[in-house]
């Protein structure tokens, strides 16, 4: 299993600990990650809304880079997965547009051909590595109640993100993270509004306080089900829940204390990776009380 590693902007810059956890887990599970000079993907909540053509061309450049190496792309961020999958699909289906974009790339020795696949880490873990391999690497089990947040851009719109896996009603419901955590013996619980937005896309563009109201709605449903930890597969969702709790507690007298984990951090704990390699010191909502208090 060899992939072009697409770290995106958020993980390597804001949460290097997530990247460290991801690289360690990848190595343990036999996934080889190849680094390449990728740029911003660029974000579906940003450049796509400002200038679609530029967004498409930048995405095509990133795709072309991986194509030159003949490698499929592994993304660790929902936004990157969303952009790269949509751009690839749009360009594959529209030869005129593909030609236009390739003319922009040509002076830089690149061409989008559409030959590679873009996969989110969750799909690589569940489908390529497989839950049995994850089960066999597990050394420690944790009993805390986990609220899984998949995040919108992982699977919406389904016609773009999972066109081959649509239900008869053309929908798609993600289960990867549940299956992965189940394999480690952890305890994901159901809660209301599980598949809804974290709010990040509103906060980064216009109004962080309003975005935190969306986050609060999700947190309240998690709290209703006594969730003790939140698990995400996207660094933007991570920030929204991790920082959101701190701000809500300060500004609105809330009392949320649900540490947020990127999926590979939880796998790291389960596989017995030393905690100092998992980057918990970058978290705003502290994990110590949970990990020290009978969670293990």
């Amino acid at each position, binding site marked *: 299993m060899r992939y072009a590693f697409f*770290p995106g*902007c*958020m993980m*390597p*810059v*804001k949460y*290097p*600990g997530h*990247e*460290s956890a991801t*690289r360690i887990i990848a190595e343990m599970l036999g996934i080889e990650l190849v*680094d*390449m*000079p*990728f*740029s*911003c993907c*660029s*974000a*579906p*909540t*940003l*450049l*796509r*809304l*400002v*200038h*679609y*053509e*530029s967004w498409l*061309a*930048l995405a095509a*450049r990133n795709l072309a880079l991986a194509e030159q190496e003949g490698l499929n792309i592994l993304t660790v961020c929902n936004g990157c997965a969303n952009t790269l999958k949509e751009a690839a699909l749009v360009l594959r289906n529209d030869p005129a*547009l593909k030609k236009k974009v390739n003319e*922009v*790339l040509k*002076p*830089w020795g690149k061409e989008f051909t559409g030959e590679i696949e873009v996969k989110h880490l969750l799909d690589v873990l569940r489908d390529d590595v497989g839950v049995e391999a994850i089960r066999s690497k597990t050394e420690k089990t944790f009993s805390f109640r986990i609220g899984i947040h998949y995040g*919108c*851009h992982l699977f*919406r*719109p*389904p016609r773009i993100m999972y066109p081959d896996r649509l239900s008869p009603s053309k929908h798609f419901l993600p289960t990867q993270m549940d299956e992965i955590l189940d394999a480690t013996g952890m305890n994901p619980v159901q809660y209301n509004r599980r598949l*809804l*937005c974290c709010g*990040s*896309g*509103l906060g*980064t*563009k*216009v*109004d962080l306080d*309003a*975005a935190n*109201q*969306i986050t609060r*709605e999700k947190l309240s449903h998690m709290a209703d089900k006594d969730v003790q930890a939140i698990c995400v597969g996207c660094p933007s969702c991570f920030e929204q829940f991790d920082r959101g709790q701190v701000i809500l507690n300060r500004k609105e007298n809330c009392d949320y204390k649900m540490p947020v984990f990127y999926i590979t951090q939880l796998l790291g704990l389960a596989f017995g990776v030393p905690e100092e*390699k998992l*980057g918990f010191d*970058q978290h705003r909502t502290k994990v110590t009380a949970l990990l020290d208090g009978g969670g293990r």
Partner: protein
Amino acid sequence: MKRPGLFNEELLYECYQCARCTGSCPAAFAVDGFNPRNILLTYLRLGIEAVITDEKLWCCTTCHVCEDRCPQLIDVADLLCSLMNEAAMQGHIPEKVRASAEMILRTGRALLVSRRVDSIREKLGLKPLPEVPMEEVEGILDQTGMAVLIG
């Protein structure tokens, strides 16, 4: 491209204003006055100028739940994307969005890689981030027109 005019406008007339998009919309829940149903209607009735000057247009989180739930299968989120593209074209870009777009234009990444970032990475045993070939990224964004829009 998904700019208005190239968006399938006929489809918008299929909207019967049930407001399921808006009832499902996290941004409508959080921001008073952001209303996808009403944006669609206003666009059809009063034209594009009436919707693109309002900064609230940018409150869409792009979660695509509206599209997931629309009984008429209208891609509401894509309509909003088109409208934001047109708004940006006419200079209506929220400050935060402009700043982030500028960061990509200048550095190739949406976030600044500071020395602090490098030292945290080093402590974790991570390599420094590979340089983004900026001449190339700038060249591409110049060619497609983003540089003019933001720069």
